[in-house]
């Protein structure tokens, strides 16, 4: 399982995504753009609307009340010994319900081979609004994850090949915050058993119970189109073979219009599977319909 498989995997995947994108473009007549620029945020590595590594209380796309929205996304991270590739689709109705599907592939450059999983996501906005009113927008979300390469996770002590994360998020934008700029903040609390997102399975020899993890993002809009910020994601530590560390990143987001959003980031993933100093570059592209 080396480069040969990678090459085989991606052309087929990208063809099917392009097909889906074509389908979605055809349904554009039904899609809405009633939300303000950037208020649909971008798409996280688990397919949920949010930042890069943190799902936000925002719903993906620009669909407002009574409107449908769709996004097609690609995320890529390249750190010292690993490469993460994610493709995802997102369907949103009425700034209320967000459904997502994502496939993740982690290339193990040093160890060899790869780890893959599929993530089915659901998010419901419970109350509040990102921009208007005093209260934050609050959403409840689920991420059901199925690891399709469980041999390696099992060998290092993982208990299950599938798991479901439950999270509660609160997000708020301040139109004229410090420096008279627009700021956005999100706090997410997640109950999870996932090891390295689930790519190393769920639960393990060290701990096999759900634990609560805090995740946060903070960003400042330099102007209407450029967002700079940072994120932090607390992670569980369930496997005895290698300690799992919290993740962090600093990012720049570009929202040229309501169709495209591009993010580049510097990520610090600490040590993964015992390999230290996993820092590197991250990029994501979101196409909205």
């Amino acid at each position, binding site marked *: 399982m080396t480069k040969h498989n990678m090459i085989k995997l991606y052309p087929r995947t990208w063809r099917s995504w392009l097909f889906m994108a074509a389908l979605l473009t055809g349904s554009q007549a039904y899609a*809405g753009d*009633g*939300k*303000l*620029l950037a208020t649909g945020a971008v798409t996280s590595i688990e397919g949920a609307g949010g930042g890069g590594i943190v799902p936000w209380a925002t719903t993906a796309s620009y669909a*407002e*009340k*009574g*409107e449908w929205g769709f996004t097609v996304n690609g995320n890529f991270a390249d750190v010292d010994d690993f490469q993460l590739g994610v493709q995802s689709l997102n369907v949103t109705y009425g*700034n209320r319900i967000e459904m997502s599907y994502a496939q993740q592939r982690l290339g193990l450059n040093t160890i060899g081979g790869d780890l893959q999983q599929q993530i089915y996501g659901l998010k419901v906005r419970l109350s509040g609004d990102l*921009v*208007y*009113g005093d209260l934050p927008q609050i959403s409840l979300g689920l991420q059901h994850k199925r690891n399709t390469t469980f041999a390696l996770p099992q060998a290092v002590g993982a208990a299950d090949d599938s798991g479901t994360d439950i999270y509660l998020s609160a997000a708020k934008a*301040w*139109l*004229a915050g410090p*420096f*008279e*700029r*627009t700021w956005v903040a999100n706090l997410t609390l997640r109950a999870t058993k996932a090891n390295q997102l689930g790519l190393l399975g769920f639960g393990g020899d060290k701990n096999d119970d759900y634990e609560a993890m805090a995740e946060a993002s903070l960003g400042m809009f*330099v*102007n*209407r189109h450029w967002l700079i910020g940072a994120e932090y994601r607390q992670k569980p530590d369930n496997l005895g073979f290698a300690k799992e560390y919290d993740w962090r990143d600093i990012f720049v987001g570009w929202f040229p219009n309501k169709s495209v959003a591009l993010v580049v980031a510097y990520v610090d993933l600490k040590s993964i599977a015992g390999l230290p100093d996993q820092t590197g570059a991250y990029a994501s592209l979101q196409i909205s319909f």
Partner: protein
Amino acid sequence: MKHLVALLVLCAVSIAPSLAQAKSDTLYQELGAQQGISDLMTTFVLEIAEDERVIHHFENVDIDRFHRMLSLHLCELTGGPCTYTGADMVEVHRGMAITRAEFNAVVEDLIAAMEAEGVPTATQNKLLARLAELHGEIVAR
């Protein structure tokens, strides 16, 4: 020493009202006072006129009066020396069933107008923050 304290107190007393005054009409001044606001509202009305998402709400509107009332309201909201004499936002929008998407469309028209008039981002943000407070009075529940 006594004199120095007295002098400082005198200074503080004489500066304080002017500081408060400066603070309250800063946004008004930043927008270019009466003329700047009037120009901005002219561009804003033109943006709305070309916006298919919301133009149907303005079919029977007296544009001159609309522009005058908008300018007056904005002058008052930004701390300028005006008194808005029109009806309140709830009354003005009663029965229009303004949707959240339509409200946002008008916000985008205002942003486009501010960009066209060269209003700096900081000033834009301060104005948008004040106007966002009206969301609850304008959008139909």
